[in-house]
């Protein structure tokens, strides 16, 4: 654990000393502020629409931060050759991967806290109420989902040497799951065998990231999700993240690193 912490702190430090995060944050702030400052005569549907848009922006920004930050970690270490002095120290490759994972995941968590805090302040001033527990559930579930994404992208960075290829493929896969994941079951029903079994297998194999999209909780001020369900969703995300991390380690543990 002692060796994992400094590694993750370096990832975090990299994020706040680089400009990418600020660009996304400023963009989100400007759009949310612009939407929030408009007067829509408290028309519920329009307010919900604006909140939906702002939350979608937060979702996209968080996903971009997660994918872009994670995709460049290992290739950048290899390109600048910093991986060599690092692995020449008493650090196992599993610790190295865990450090990178933790760093990227904490980075996403920090970005989410900043985004949600800003969104809550804007909504709170407009609606004169702040359902804190709803915010907490939405943020927690999104963070868990990002854990799966970070682990998946780390696996991609071992499979694809170019960070741009990894980022693009990861974006397509993640957005594909988010948009189509929930429909795969229905699609399977409309297929003939063996396509039906294949689509079903895919439906049960992929991590259902769309389950973590609980924006409606904040948009329509819905009641809280049962904490047991939140716990199960957390376990589901942890299982997938661990599976991807384990696969990454299997590929990376004996990988020759050429100078």
């Amino acid at each position, binding site marked *: 654990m002692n060796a994992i912490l400094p590694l993750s702190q370096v990832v975090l430090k990299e994020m706040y000393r680089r400009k990418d995060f600020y660009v996304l944050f400023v963009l989100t702030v400007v759009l949310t502020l612009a939407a929030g400052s408009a007067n829509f005569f408290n028309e519920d549907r329009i307010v919900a629409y604006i909140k939906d848009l702002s939350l979608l922006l937060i979702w996209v920004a968080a996903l971009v931060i997660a994918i872009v930050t994670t995709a460049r970690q290992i290739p950048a270490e290899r390109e600048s*050759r910093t991986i060599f002095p690092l692995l020449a120290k008493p650090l196992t490759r599993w610790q190295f991967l865990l450090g990178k994972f933790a760093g990227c995941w904490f980075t996403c968590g920090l970005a989410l806290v900043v985004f949600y805090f800003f969104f809550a302040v804007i909504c709170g001033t407009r609606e004169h109420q702040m359902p804190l527990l709803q915010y907490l559930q939405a943020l927690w579930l999104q963070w868990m989902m990002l854990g799966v994404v970070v682990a998946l992208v780390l696996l991609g960075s071992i499979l694809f040497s170019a960070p741009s290829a990894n980022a693009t493929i990861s974006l397509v896969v993640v957005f594909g799951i988010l948009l189509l994941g929930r429909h795969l079951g229905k699609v399977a029903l409309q297929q003939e065998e063996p396509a039906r079994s294949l689509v079903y297998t895919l439906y049960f194999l992929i991590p259902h990231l769309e389950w973590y999209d609980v924006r409606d909780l904040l948009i329509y001020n819905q009641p809280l999700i049962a904490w047991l369900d939140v716990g199960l969703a957390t376990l589901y995300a942890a299982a997938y993240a661990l599976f991807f991390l384990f696969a990454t380690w299997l590929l990376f543990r004996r990988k020759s690193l050429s100078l």
Partner: protein
Amino acid sequence: MNPASSITQLPLTAAALSPQMTGNRPEDRRLSMSAEETKPPVTEGTRVPVIRISNLVVEYRSKALGQASHRAVNGLSLEVHPGEVFGLLGPNGAGKTTTMQVLLGFQQPTSGTACLYGVDVQEPIARQHIGYLPELTYYYKFLNAEELLRFYGRIFKLPKAVLEPRIDEVLKLVELEAVRKRLIKTYSKGMQQRIGLAQALINDPDLLILDEPTSGLDPLGRMKVREIIQRLKSQGKTVLFSSHELGEVETVCDRIAIINRGELKLVGRVHDLVKEYHMDLERIFLRIIGYQAQSV
């Protein structure tokens, strides 16, 4: 006297050759070993090698179909003893870097073994007391020197009370004290190389592995790095380094090994070799690798 007589004539002791006798077998020790236990063994009257490479073979499989694999290292056996400055020489592609890669666990050997202080190099604990400076590394440019050294020190789990004075000490040694708060991206090439040396020294290692430490440096930068190596030598550190600067090797090294096409061609004390061959190191090197001067 036959010059070849100096090849692999090393003063080995029975203890150094037999890990079974010393209880140094990695498989016996790996589960119960602490960092303290891997401290270099000091035995009166014996010289336990810091580095032991036995019959090392490294083959690179060709990615193209039908192409034969390439053997980068071919049956290399080598020992480096405590307190020595050992130079690994060879033309480009000779297998020096591959050998270092195996020693640092970056590369799996096809066959043979490599041990640091009697511990198999695949065990991370084997690297507890070593420092490594790779060639041409660009350290995290968003950190300053102090932060970088703190980061590496924490990887070694050095307590704060030890780490902070150590950071001051190594920054003073590599003469980067004045720029410790400056981001590394603003450093010159020579300064980058010195911060690399500083990170290699942060754990006060007993063995330093330096890959072309003076590569790409101007004469002043080269001299500074050489001075640091001399200072480490006077402190009794063991240094293994590869270089193409043969004049520098002659000045700094106690012993050298010349590798060509993955095979060990010569190993011996610099002083003895120069005496035996009646020529300088550069000419010995060229002769060993079979270079024939072309008449114009």
